[in-house]
């Protein structure tokens, strides 16, 4: 077969290959989030209070310990789980008891969650309990926010700045 004919025969293959690359490298487009929705992201990392309070050892208890281990105050490392609740317009969006990290359960409790919600004006309430209290919450924040479509709204937490923050 003459070379020119062979090259003509090859053209459709190269063209098909190019079309495949051009199309699948961009199309079909993917809708990750409904354009009318916003996204609420809950992200917090916080250590609950110690499960048991520290107590001072008696002289007898201290005497039983090795000389280099004689610390007058004994503290159990284990921490409490956090109870976290998020409400959107009085509807419960998220509620969980978050275990502390670590083999001894002495680390921070962490959560990272995302919730697609309809854009518009909403009341967002975030609550957190990190203590022994049987009822109620140690930290709470409620705010009326106007979420625009595709907004990334972060519900964060920082104990140093007073607890929950909405960004």
């Amino acid at each position, binding site marked *: *077969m003459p070379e020119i004919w062979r090259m003509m025969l*090859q053209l459709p293959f190269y063209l098909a290959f190019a079309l495949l690359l*051009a199309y699948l490298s961009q199309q079909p487009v993917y809708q990750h989030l409904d354009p009318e929705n916003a996204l609420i992201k809950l992200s917090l990392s916080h250590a609950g209070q110690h499960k048991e309070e520290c107590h001072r050892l008696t002289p007898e208890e201290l005497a039983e310990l090795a000389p280099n281990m004689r610390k007058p105050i004994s503290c159990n490392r284990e921490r409490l789980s956090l109870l976290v609740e998020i409400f959107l317009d009085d509807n419960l969006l998220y509620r969980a008891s978050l275990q502390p990290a670590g083999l001894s359960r002495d680390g921070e409790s962490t959560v990272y969650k995302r919730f697609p919600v309809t854009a518009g004006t909403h009341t967002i309430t975030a609550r957190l309990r990190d203590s022994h209290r049987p009822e109620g919450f140690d930290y709470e924040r409620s705010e009326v926010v106007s979420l625009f479509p595709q907004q990334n709204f972060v519900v964060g937490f920082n104990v140093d700045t007073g607890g929950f923050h909405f960004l």
Partner: protein
Amino acid sequence: MRRALKSVFERIDRFFDIAFTPAWNPMQQLGALGWFFYWIVIVSGIYLYIFFDTGITQAYHSVEYLTHEQWYAGGIMRSLHRYASDALVVVVFLHLLREYVLDRFRGPRWFAWVSGMVLLWLLYVSGISGYWVVWDKLAQYVAIATTEWFDSLRIFGKPIARNFLNEASLSGRFFTLLIFIHIAAPLMLLFGMWLHIQRHMHPKVTPPRGLAAGCLVTLFILSLWFPALSQGPADLDKVPGIISLDWFYLFIYPLLDKYSGAIIWAAVAGGTLLLSLLPWLPARRQSEVAVVHLDNCNGCARCVADCPYSAITMVPRTDGLPFEQQAAVNPVLCLSCGICSGACPSASPFRRRTALIPGVELPAFPIQAVKDMVLSKTQDLAGNNRVLIFNCEHGLDLTSAPVKNIAQITLPCIGMLPPAMIDFTISRKYADGVFIAGCREHDCNYRLGNEWMQQRLARKRDPYLRERVPAERLAQCWAGVSGYKQGLSELSRFQEQLAGLAPTARQSPEERLRDGNKTECANA
């Protein structure tokens, strides 16, 4: 399933053979094309890196500068970088599927298969991290989805997705780490690719020039016609709603929105494990590996040069014979193709004084057995168009051909046939002609059997076919399993041609007995 796929592949191959010629057939150059696209990615990547600003806020602008201000060089390089990466994925998956369908992944070939699985992961790490560093909306989506996916493993103290919570939480250091990954992963990929072909002698790492040029021109035109563009700067305060995905690399991401990260991890890890175990599900039933007969090995190293899988090496002589070296077979690497015995100069059926035992051969298929078959199978042939067919068990099979006066000897690989056997068959008049039928051209089941055989017959590779063998009494057909019609037609034509030649005297029973007896005497 695999048989149906094999038939599909052969049909595609034939189609490509017509358009590209067997030598340029892209389906038989998938590995080499993979290397070629890899190098395009690397060269274009180096160019882009020269102008790329690794700062998280500057990265997007530097890529935009390359794309628009410097479209004639940087823009084309960016597009080549993307399209060559995508083309790499295409050829890699075709390569994987083809090797599976053609059953070229079990036995000693497990190493290339399993190392290929590692390469797949490295390829995806390289590609996905590349989309990340542009830091546009797609990068933002990929960054968040990837970190959330990794967080589902629960191996980090705090979720790493928190690095992309909003603009304020963005860390330049984390971004620098990603750029490091995008450089380190392709380098590891290169190392892996090198390892992948370590068990291959003469690996194909460069495609034929014409095919390479065609692919490069295609990618170049595609880059001009449909340049790779960014999708707007990343803005962590907004969620990218609709995005254009590169489905070659990012097909798994939409699944992460549908299923939990743990399920996707289980699927990809399980899939990789299953694919990696395929060579042993079930394991290849392999006949005994080649053995070296030191009495007949003079250490010429032709078997070493011809073994496609580096299974033979030369080692210092151990038997006191006056040669420096001897061949040694590594049973772990040997695929029992027999190409080594076809390369051995002592595999000559003309030998009279000693038994027909070459320096190296397959215990299950000794060269003496081939000679015996030549004697026995040609016994009933008559006339002046008697044809002895030597074929490969993975290639064209003419056993059921509706043609008279033919006999067929099937070998594990056509490369196992010593050229002296052809000379013997014709010069001793056991047949009027010899018909060589192997795998499809450039598609030898044992990689190099076809090529070596063709070179031996063309007297370009040791052991040469002797000059005295008349060209008109030898025919070659590289049609493969699916080329039955072609093979039949070529065989008929060959027989017609032989009938037109001066008749050769048929071996008398006494002469046959003499050839046979001498061997037996020698064996005894």
